[in-house]
């Protein structure tokens, strides 16, 4: 029974995802495809989804490669690297809202340049946000996904032995970029493929970022699906379901296209090698580009978040003024009653989902080792399912299932759905450290007479406190950031901070949006801060573990 636990855990979340797909796709047969074909915005919505998703993935990956190639071993890189993890904790919706505050015609960039440079005394009539090409959306996706890919790349980099390979490359006369492309990139990319696919799937199907930053009429396909699904009468369920099938096919097609692109990349690299090119002339430019774009993007994100914070305490702030005339806590005191409810709800759901996920993951990892039961590679790949399957494709079905079970609109149902997305992240974050534990500690303890339970509670869990807390913080961040599942299964009645913040975004009350977005940001930030601080405090007098916590 106990030995079946890893399999049980696997089924526990693979099953709802697949059930969501099957149940959600059935209504499409009820005239859904015909209705979808009649929708006039279809081709444009499809082009927008595919275009913004692919463009954001290409740019994010290219920038990641450039930064890793040119900068990863520079001394100035360490601070940039430390900024990455906190950036990842920023929920997509908060990042998008901050960016909107920055880019809007009446946003911070326009204010900083007006009137001295632009002559504007009124917000200009420009589509700097929600532009029909989806450029603002693409920028937002890059700003949020590039740090993710960069962090993944830096984690995988040591296994690719970059230092000796780059040295060898330069000894053979290659420029740095060329040496990296030939010697390090192929191995690194192989390890990055799954995260890249996850970015592609997310970029093509994001709802909250596209609602805030993307075009309106028509919106991207996934925003339109969410719109259709939010109709309480379920009148649009068939067309939404047909569109979800189309959306999933689009993502799969884009992944195939991407694989084709990989072949092209390999051919280019082979050509480069066959020509014997050394490309020594491009290095200076590549370094400057990596620095400029890397710090530029980090700056955009930092300004976005600062803008949110400033608006939430801004007094009178007329258009061309770069800063508000005064600061006030009034937006916060006004928002406080609604904010507190929302904050507690978000916290409770996040802690609940994370707690269950942590228990399941720890139990699976513990028993996989105790019983020599290791689910195979394919089984572990199932874990990536919630990361690779677009949420928008699974949600119609999960919403129908929640309705049938009569649990739609309850916080508990929302928590259960969050669990599907929290579990894989907690597992992926915790598994390496848990499996990497020195088993001889356990053996030694057993020869001293300690039972497996005592070894787990007294030794393994305390020693792994840091990784466990980091995984928990990631779980809280993932749960707190969920928009679509919360909206769909919550029926719009489970008002977490993310749901409220996105709902406010169309209203234009920047002070209120700022207060909600900052609160939405604060929860994961607090979780990560605790995950960093607690091990340092607990192990203050344990040098070996302190060194690990500070690494």
């Amino acid at each position, binding site marked *: 029974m106990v030995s079946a636990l890893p399999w049980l855990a696997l089924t526990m979340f693979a099953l709802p995802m697949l059930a969501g797909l099957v149940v959600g796709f059935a209504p499409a047969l009820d005239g859904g495809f015909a209705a979808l074909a009649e929708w006039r915005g279809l081709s444009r919505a499809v082009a927008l989804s595919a275009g913004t998703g692919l463009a954001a993935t290409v740019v994010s990956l290219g920038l990641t490669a450039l930064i890793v190639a040119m900068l990863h071993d520079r001394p100035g890189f360490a601070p940039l690297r430390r900024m990455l993890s906190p950036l990842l904790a920023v929920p997509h919706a908060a990042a998008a809202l901050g960016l909107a505050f920055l880019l809007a015609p009446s946003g911070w960039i326009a204010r900083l340049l007006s009137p001295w440079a632009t002559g504007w005394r009124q917000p200009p009539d420009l589509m700097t946000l929600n532009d029909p090409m989806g450029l603002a959306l693409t920028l937002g996706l890059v700003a949020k996904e590039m740090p993710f890919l960069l962090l993944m790349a830096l984690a995988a980099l040591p296994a690719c032995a970059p230092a000796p390979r780059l040295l060898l490359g330069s000894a053979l006369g290659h420029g740095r970029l060329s040496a990296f492309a030939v010697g390090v990139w192929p191995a690194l990319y192989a390890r990055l493929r799954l995260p890249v696919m996850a970015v592609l799937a997310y970029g093509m199907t994001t709802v909250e970022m596209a609602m805030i930053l993307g075009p309106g009429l028509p919106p991207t396909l996934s925003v339109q699906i969410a719109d259709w699904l939010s109709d309480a009468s379920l009148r649009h369920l068939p067309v939404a379901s047909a569109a979800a099938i189309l959306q999933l096919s689009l993502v799969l097609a884009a992944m195939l296209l991407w694989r084709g692109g990989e072949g092209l990349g390999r051919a280019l690299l082979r050509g480069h090698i066959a020509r014997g090119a050394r490309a020594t002339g491009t290095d200076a430019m590549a370094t400057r580009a990596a620095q400029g774009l890397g710090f530029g993007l980090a700056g955009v994100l930092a300004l976005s978040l600062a803008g949110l914070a400033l608006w939430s305490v801004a007094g009178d702030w007329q258009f061309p003024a770069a800063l508000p005339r005064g600061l006030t806590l009034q937006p916060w005191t006004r928002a406080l009653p609604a904010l507190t409810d929302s904050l507690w709800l978000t916290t409770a759901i996040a802690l609940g989902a994370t707690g269950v996920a942590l228990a399941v993951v720890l139990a699976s990892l513990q028993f996989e080792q105790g019983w*020599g039961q290791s689910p195979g590679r394919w089984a572990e790949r199932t874990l990536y399912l919630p990361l690779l399957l677009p949420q928008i494709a699974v949600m119609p079905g999960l919403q129908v299932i929640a309705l049938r079970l009569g649990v739609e609109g309850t916080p508990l149902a929302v928590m259960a759905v969050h669990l599907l997305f929290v579990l894989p992240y907690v597992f992926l974050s915790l598994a390496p450290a848990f499996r990497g534990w*020195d088993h*001889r*500690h356990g*053996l*030694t*303890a*057993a*020869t*001293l*007479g*300690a*039972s*497996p339970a005592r070894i787990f509670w*007294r*030794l393994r869990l*305390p*020693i792994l*406190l840091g990784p466990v807390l980091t995984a928990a913080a990631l779980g809280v961040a993932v749960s707190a950031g969920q928009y679509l599942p919360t909206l769909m299964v919550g029926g719009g009645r489970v008002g977490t901070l993310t749901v409220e913040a996105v709902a406010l975004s169309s209203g234009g009350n920047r002070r209120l949006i700022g207060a909600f977005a900052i609160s939405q940001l604060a929860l994961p930030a607090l979780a990560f801060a605790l995950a960093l601080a607690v091990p340092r405090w607990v*192990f203050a*007098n*344990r*040098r*070996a*573990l302190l060194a690990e916590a500070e690494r």
Partner: protein
Amino acid sequence: MSPADGLVLQDLTLFHGTDVLAHLDLAVRPGAVLTVMAPSGAGKSTLLRALIGALPAGFHATGRILLNGRDVTALPTAARRIGLLFQDDLLFPHLSVGQNLLFGLAPGGTRNQRRERIEQALAAAGLAGFATRDPATLSGGQRARVALLRALLANPEALLLDEPFARLDASLRAQIRQATFDATRHLPVILVTHDAADAAAAGGPVLSLFGQQVSP
């Protein structure tokens, strides 16, 4: 001393798949040290894993293991009362020196009695006042002595040594080795090593993984 005293391996055969890695049929009396000498990677450590009942996947063993007349062959590791010291001291990094020893100390006694027992053991080993220390702040020799103390406080009926001196400086090595053999005079001890000096210092028979005499 009854003939059942000590650690008895009856026709113990260690397999990796279908390959035989070791075959031993012998008895180690209390106070005796049996040295098993073989090159690295031959299966010495795995033999010790068989004796404590924690064989890695892919390995299995046949035969019987008797300890002071008890058949421990089918018992879980924690119930065998066979101690094991590795090459590394493996002090638990999140516990103080004293807590490490308390973790090992056999159950029984009040909290104060147990603490006193630890203090005495530390003092006897020349480590008085070390109970609250972080293991990471100890020298290599001190850590080795704490690891030995921890193993002995669990009251084992036999002790296995998996090249426990290999990581120590040459100057410390003889000293720790002597301290270890002095402290285990009442126990049957099996030492596995590929180091001839360790084997010679043990003073007992030196055998291969198949029980043949080896000249160290």
